[in-house]
């Protein structure tokens, strides 16, 4: 598959890459806050403090999940409504985001105050780790209170086109948190790290509020509630925000399992795996960068813009996945050192754990929908060809407001996909007989060892032999996508 093309940069791609930097920074904030807290806790205080931070991580991730349910969905819906020039509805969407983020923050804060201590005991920590976790949670409760609101403002300011303010806010938050955590941890221990996190969430909100004084701002403060709008917001955000929910569950299960099965001294290994996952989330800015562009195109019903921006986002996702994996594999031996893991058997487990977790970052998959085309063929190594028939929708432009379902299939090196127009299977001979899918499938299966280009030529030759010179009335177009090994040229 051709991952990179040398096409001239379009306006859309320039905007995408400009937003990718800001979007990556936006998504980095949660991960940087978590990662830096663990790393500083390890370097300055010790491995018990790292385990303490990891015990609190599920609560923090849960707040990030609820925050992102609102903060990812609201900008998408807001920009979609703006794309339709429906400002009143866009204002209602923003008003709903403000109201829900405040309610969510307060509810999470109250629940953490009431049940936080009970939760910390669930992982059977040692007294030392429990004390560190309590100290960290003290200020993190206030961070949890503010996360949903900060996430919403950060995401809406960013998607409102103010990458400058958004980038400054995220940059100051990340760097400020790190430097103040280092300083405060020397005086206040783990509480200092929690205090630094909270302080710089507040600072970030204050910087973001500058946007509301700028001329380019279209966001209008208001409070609004409608179950329908809330449902729509959740529909747009639930998949992306679920990564934080998954992360919260993963960390909680890891803590509980390792604490109960191997004992509290092994809890640091949960921190190592968690850190590796956080590192992968660092680069998850593609969704952030694409969403506003997709939404405007959706609002304008610009299908060609939608297609090209989607293709660009996919290429960047694959490239980033490979880079993150390589980085993790290379830096694995240094992570236990940073976290102050000194016991040799734990050191070995930690390095292996990071490298195994790194594999989750690399994937090649195909996100697809089918708008009225013949079912494509999927040819997997060593298996007969089969058709991809899920989510077959109406042809493009047939009806207004048609919705298409998206699906994803995992692809491995050696896999191939054949896309073709109906002119191929409906090529006819002298007697009016059709070439048909059975012949096409046989040709595909018999050309396993050929290159993509040779496959196309072989099928075309067979169609020509079948038609025997009878003029065809439809176009005969085919594309083969081949997933190559990394060492092969793409």
């Amino acid at each position: 598959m051709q991952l990179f093309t040398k096409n001239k940069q379009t306006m859309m791609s320039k905007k995408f890459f400009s937003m990718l930097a800001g979007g990556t920074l936006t998504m980095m904030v949660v991960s940087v806050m978590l990662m830096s807290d663990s790393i500083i806790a390890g370097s300055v205080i010790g491995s018990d403090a790292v385990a303490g931070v990891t015990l609190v991580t599920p609560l923090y991730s849960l707040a990030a999940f609820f925050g992102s349910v609102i903060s990812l969905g609201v900008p998408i819906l807001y920009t979609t409504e703006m794309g339709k020039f429906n400002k009143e509805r866009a204002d209602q969407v923003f008003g709903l985001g403000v109201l829900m983020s405040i309610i969510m923050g307060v509810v999470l804060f109250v629940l953490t105050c009431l049940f936080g201590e009970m939760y910390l005991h669930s992982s059977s920590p040692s007294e030392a780790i429990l004390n560190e976790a309590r100290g960290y949670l003290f200020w993190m409760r206030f961070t949890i209170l503010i996360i949903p609101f900060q996430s919403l403002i950060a995401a809406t300011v960013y998607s409102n086109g103010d990458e400058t303010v958004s980038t400054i806010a995220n940059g100051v938050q990340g760097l400020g948190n790190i430097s103040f955590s280092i300083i405060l941890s020397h005086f206040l221990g783990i509480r200092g790290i929690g205090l630094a996190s909270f302080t710089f969430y507040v600072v970030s909100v204050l910087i973001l509020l500058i946007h509301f004084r700028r001329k380019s701002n279209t966001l209008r403060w208001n409070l609004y509630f409608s179950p329908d709008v809330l449902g729509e917001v959740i529909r747009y955000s639930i998949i992306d925000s679920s990564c934080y929910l998954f992360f919260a569950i993963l960390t909680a299960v890891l803590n509980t399992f390792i604490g109960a099965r191997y004992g509290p001294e092994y809890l640091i290994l949960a921190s190592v795996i968690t850190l590796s996952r956080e590192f992968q989330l660092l680069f998850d800015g593609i969704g952030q960068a694409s969403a506003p562009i997709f939404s405007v195109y959706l609002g304008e019903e610009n299908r060609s813009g939608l297609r090209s921006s989607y293709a660009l986002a996919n290429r960047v996702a694959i490239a980033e996945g490979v880079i993150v994996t390589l980085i993790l594999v290379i830096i694995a031996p240094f992570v236990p050192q940073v976290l102050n893991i000194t016991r040799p058997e734990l050191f070995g487990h930690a390095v292996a754990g990071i490298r195994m977790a790194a594999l989750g970052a690399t994937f090649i998959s195909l996100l697809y929908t089918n708008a009225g085309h013949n079912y494509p063929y999927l040819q997997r190594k060593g298996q007969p060809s089969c058709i991809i028939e899920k989510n077959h929708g109406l042809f493009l432009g047939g009806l207004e407001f048609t919705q298409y379902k998206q699906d994803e299939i995992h692809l491995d090196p050696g896999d191939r996909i054949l896309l073709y127009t109906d002119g191929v299977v409906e090529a006819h001979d002298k007697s009016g007989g059709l070439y048909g899918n059975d012949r096409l499938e046989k040709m595909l299966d018999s050309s396993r060892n050929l290159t993509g280009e040779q496959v196309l030529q072989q099928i075309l030759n067979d169609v020509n032999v079948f038609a025997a010179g009878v003029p065809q009335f439809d176009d005969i177009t085919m594309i083969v996508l081949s997933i190559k090994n990394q060492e092969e040229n793409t």
Partner: protein
Amino acid sequence: MKLTHEKNGTDLTIHLSGEMNTLTAPELSALLDKELDGMQTLTLDFKECDYVSSAGLRVLLATYKQMKAAKGSMELINVGPDFKDVLMNTGLDAVFGIF
């Protein structure tokens, strides 16, 4: 293509026979322009129809939109396997009522 039709109150049924292609689809279009006004139910009978090209599909989709706008209904009956494949490939099987 040969077209015959019958009306029963606000129900219109059209029987199609032969091929509906680029040349013949306008005949159906012209008939619908003339007869569809005020109809609430449209039934298209494909029992004798051998082939429907993309031009035919275009007429069907335009008619469907027209019926939908008038809050009426449209259904295709006696659809043969080849035409059914075409409808499935284009996603129109989920749009039209097919019997």
